[in-house]
């Protein structure tokens, strides 16, 4: 195999992979690195974000953080997690709030704020792009694109 053919193959591979990598930046669920949680199931994450049960398996109380509606990652997250539109999620929370059962997770403006929240709360849990996740947090769930 000569070098020009290799270059061509590499070029094609880049063409195929790059746009995919950009368009489908992988959304992951992260927890505080010191929470002692290493991996979670989808149902455990649903239970925490929908307020059904806000505790990790090891007894640490979960403190979820959400994004504002105007940030596109919020719609991506709920679509990937439960296949629901944001208006369904908001309707769910209006039932919980106005029946006096519970409050939704606090909402922050952007993924940097999510990272700040998760690293500042022992039971912090949020969702960000994989590229955003640094040593302050631990990735416990990946949504396969």
């Amino acid at each position, binding site marked *: 195999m000569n070098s020009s053919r290799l270059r061509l193959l590499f070029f094609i591979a880049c063409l195929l992979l790059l746009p995919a990598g950009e368009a489908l930046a992988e959304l992951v669920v992260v927890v505080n690195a010191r929470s002692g949680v290493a991996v979670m*199931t989808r149902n455990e994450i649903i239970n925490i974000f929908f307020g*059904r049960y806000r*505790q990790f398996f090891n007894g640490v*109380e979960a403190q979820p953080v959400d994004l504002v509606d105007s940030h596109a990652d919020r719609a991506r997250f709920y679509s990937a997690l439960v296949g629901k*539109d944001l208006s369904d999620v908001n309707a769910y929370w209006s039932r919980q709030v106005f*029946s006096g059962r519970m*409050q939704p997770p606090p909402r922050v403006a952007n993924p940097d704020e999510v990272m700040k929240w998760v690293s500042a709360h022992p039971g912090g849990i949020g969702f960000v792009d994989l590229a955003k996740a640094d040593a302050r947090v631990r990735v416990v769930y990946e949504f396969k694109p």
Partner: protein
Amino acid sequence: MTRQRADILLRQAAGSFFAIAILLVQLLVAPQVAANEESAFSLHGFGTLGLARTTGNQAEFVRDLSQPRGATDHWDARVDSVLGLQANWQLTPQLEAVIQATSRYRYDRTFTPEISWAFLKYDPNPQLSLRAGRLGTEFFMLADSRLVGYSYLPVRPPGDFFWYLPFYAIDGADLAVTVPVGEDVLRGKVYYGVSDANIPLADKQWKIDGSAMAGGYLDYQAGAWLFRLSYANIRFSHEMPIDDVLAAYLPPAQAAQASQYLTTANTRSHYYSLGAIYDSGPWLFQLMLNKIKQGSNIFQSSEGGYVLAGYRIAQVTPYLGYSWIHSDSRGNTLNPVVASIMADSHADQNTTILGARWDFAHNMAIKAQWDAIRGEPASIFPYRQERAAWTGKTDVFSVTMDFVF
């Protein structure tokens, strides 16, 4: 007399207890609140602007028994319109104060605002939740969010299922326990309290304030499925205002006997229900069944239920439902006057529901719905001002705009 006075004293005591509790909590946690970076106070609201009409004027259609007049063949805004405001104050991470006021067409034919909830909620850990004050009742699943149109799919909770439920709040306490079962969640709740309400009855009102309510339920959440078993009862504290009707049509001795026979004070009604909800992706499916055992001869025990299915397509969710209610007439009616009073609580009908919800803007939805009610002419219980020509069949058309903020 003594009973009434005891009720008043009890309520005053509960009121002052609540005020003192809030004051104490304020004093205790004030420094913490100031130090808390997260917003401790929030104000939210919900509302519905609704229009409903039927295809006839032989009976007036109401949302539930708390409404004295209803819709006929003219568009009527009273049936579904409501406005609610709610303030939440997170005093500590475990303690929250909630107060909600609502305005809707009510028993006295006004939209006078009421304090629907006012309670303190204490969640010492993720397993336990305690509330005390004025609370929403959950005699049936979803019953404590019946007024929040934005939170559910159809225009209003199916009447055949919810008509017998004019109770919205108790002054009391509840306790909920949540236990994980693998990835599933089991939740149980018990509550006790006294009612603070009136039910309209022709041109009069039946006081149910002071009536003791107690109940509980078990929820099992497994993925997209939620199942509930529930039980509740109410012990009515007052008589229905029917004595002057009896006196007008019956000789005194018979009137007294009839009054005794139709007594409601100190009778107990029992509410049993079973519900299943499947909520996943674009699909929503609900099945609810209930059985109501009435202690007083003036009411008929009943069985009802509904199924509802919806499928979201982009911003529009069409839905289809079917509901039913059948009540059992009692055999012994003493005399024709008593029989006609007892026949007032007869219900025997089913309803086909067809509609669509359009989430046209952020936190706003428009709904349009057709209810095809097919019942027996004797099915007059859920209606107001029914006339002799009533056939038991009518169609209800409704349009609403729901919002939350």
